[in-house]
């Protein structure tokens, strides 16, 4: 069985500060990992993904995440956040055997001016 743990339900941060949103997963087989973002009253949209290859993946708006197999983690980072990054962030895992995404509980990123 696969599962995802997002360790922080809410992360407040000041604008231009760095941020890390934590995600740990459990799975006994190979995995595909995703981060999705949800803005208020909208559906989820893909932020970045790890399928294979380089363990460091980046998004077009400055976020990055690193796949760490030994620690079963896929933490999301951004060196300098903007007010517009305020949103809910979901980590998701798909195991090679199930092909069904399992989502974490989400982390609310709140960026203060």
């Amino acid at each position: 069985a696969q599962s995802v743990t997002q360790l922080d339900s809410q992360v407040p941060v000041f604008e231009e500060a760095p941020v890390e949103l934590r995600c740990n997963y459990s799975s006994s087989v190979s995995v595909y990992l995703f981060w999705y973002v949800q803005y208020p009253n909208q559906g989820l949209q893909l932020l970045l993904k790890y399928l294979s290859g380089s363990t460091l993946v980046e998004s077009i708006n400055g976020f990055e995440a690193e796949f760490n197999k030994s620690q079963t983690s896929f933490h999301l980072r951004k060196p300098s956040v903007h007010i517009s990054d305020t949103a809910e962030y979901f980590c998701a895992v798909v195991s090679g055997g199930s092909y069904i995404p399992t989502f974490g509980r989400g982390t609310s990123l709140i960026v203060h001016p």
Partner: protein
Amino acid sequence: NAGVTQTPKFRILKIGQSMTLQCTQDMNHNYMYWYRQDPGMGLKLIYYSVGAGITDKGEVPNGYNVSRSTTEDFPLRLELAAPSQTSVYFCASSQTGSTEAFFGQGTRLTVV
């Protein structure tokens, strides 16, 4: 591109009523999913489908039913609505299970 379209966006139901949440995708995706989102609980899988004519239960299927007669459509049926079904419902699709999922805008359902 329309992507994944859900209707309605909002609905208020009385206890015991029934309704169908509609979901259509125009990307020719094989996989489709229904999730419910409750505050602080993330997304819980209700039902999923890996192709037309094939559906299966997810984590929280009780009180719901689905069908998949075409690749494009994946409606979710609520029978005998209960207050515990008050939630935001999301439909999603993906080409395969290992590719990204595309989400609809959601249906906010209140059962009173």
